[in-house]
């Protein structure tokens, strides 16, 4: 009979046994016999019909995935070991409410700048965006959210798994476009200047109303191309 070694936390389901002798000509049959003998094990080892993603089966110290998987032949003197994979880590999260408040302020101030024909308001927004990119803690509009709007219950947090870096890049990108707009406005190229301001308003509105972050898209494309500094790829679900 083939022996299957049982991980410590599963021994309550095998009557405390650290090893169970099973019959079967293959790894799959041996595991089926194990769960037939100890039915409570099944829920811990299987997710539906498949082994759970973190469950590895080793035949005499070799991962059966590198052999013939569940069809791998087993002999009477073989030992199978159930070894978990484990991974984890801190959660990368972004509060999308903070981003939306930031975008709303950017749009409002830039529209106001256009209506009042105020170069200084554009300079103000550019400064806020670039400072917030360089030192996120000094992000003025996000500060209004975290110190005023959220504590007052006016805006509810929407914390979801996400990478903060692409959003930071997107804001920096917007800030740089505004710098170009300021240069154009100061040089008298009024139409070009307000057109560039318009680009920032449209991109911020796309993000605010449709949830599409153009800067993040660019960031992830640069990540895909392996550009240094763009280290984060989109978050994956699961293992």
């Amino acid at each position, binding site marked *: 009979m083939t022996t299957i070694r049982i991980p410590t936390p599963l021994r309550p389901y095998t009557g405390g046994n650290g090893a169970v002798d099973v019959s079967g000509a293959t790894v799959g049959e041996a595991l089926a016999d194990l769960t037939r003998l100890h039915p409570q094990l099944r829920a811990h080892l299987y997710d539906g019909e498949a082994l759970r993603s973190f469950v590895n089966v080793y035949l005499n110290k070799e991962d059966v995935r590198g052999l013939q998987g569940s069809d791998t032949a087993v002999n009477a003197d073989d030992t199978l070991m159930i070894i978990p994979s484990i991974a984890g*880590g801190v959660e990368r999260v972004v509060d999308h409410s903070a981003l939306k408040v930031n975008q709303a302020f950017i749009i409002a101030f830039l529209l106001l700048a256009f209506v009042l024909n105020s170069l200084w308001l554009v300079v103000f927004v550019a400064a806020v965006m670039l400072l917030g990119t360089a030192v996120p803690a000094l992000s003025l509009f996000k500060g209004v959210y975290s110190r005023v709007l959220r504590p007052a219950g006016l805006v509810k947090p929407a914390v979801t798994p996400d990478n903060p870096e692409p959003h930071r890049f997107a804001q920096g990108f917007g800030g740089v476009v505004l710098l170009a707009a300021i240069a154009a406005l100061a040089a008298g190229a009024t139409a070009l200047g307000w057109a560039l301001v318009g680009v920032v308003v449209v991109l911020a509105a796309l993000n605010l109303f449709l949830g599409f972050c153009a800067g993040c898209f660019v960031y992830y494309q640069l990540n895909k191309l392996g550009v240094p500094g763009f280290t984060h790829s989109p978050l994956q679900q699961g293992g």
Partner: protein
Amino acid sequence: MLILANDIHVTIRAHGAASYPNEGCGLLLGETRDGDTVALAARPLPNVWPVEAEKPERFRIDPADWLAVELEAADVGLEVVGVFHSHPDHPPVASPRDVAWAAFAGYSYLITQVVAGTAGLSRSWQLLPDRSGFVEEPVSEE
């Protein structure tokens, strides 16, 4: 309850600090005593998360390393009773990602906070049997 014996908390904290800014990880070896988990030895293991730049936020233990430690433990009459890892610049609280990628319920999941390279508080967690989340378990040192 998780009991850390033989000053292994020193080993665990040192490994977390040495791994900074990356997450450090390893296995706890010991035994179960009157319903408590007693960790008698700590085995630091490489963090084999495949993307180097993500190691400050992620860890993975190679199952081949786990197997080797499991066999080593069995040779001296011990068992793998838990997993430890560090959270650089984050609180030692099990995250949704830790839940998603945990192994079996029944292991102690010890997390050590490391701030700017200095190891701080450790807290331990048990995965609920239905894998819906972690509950904290007390930690004591003896």
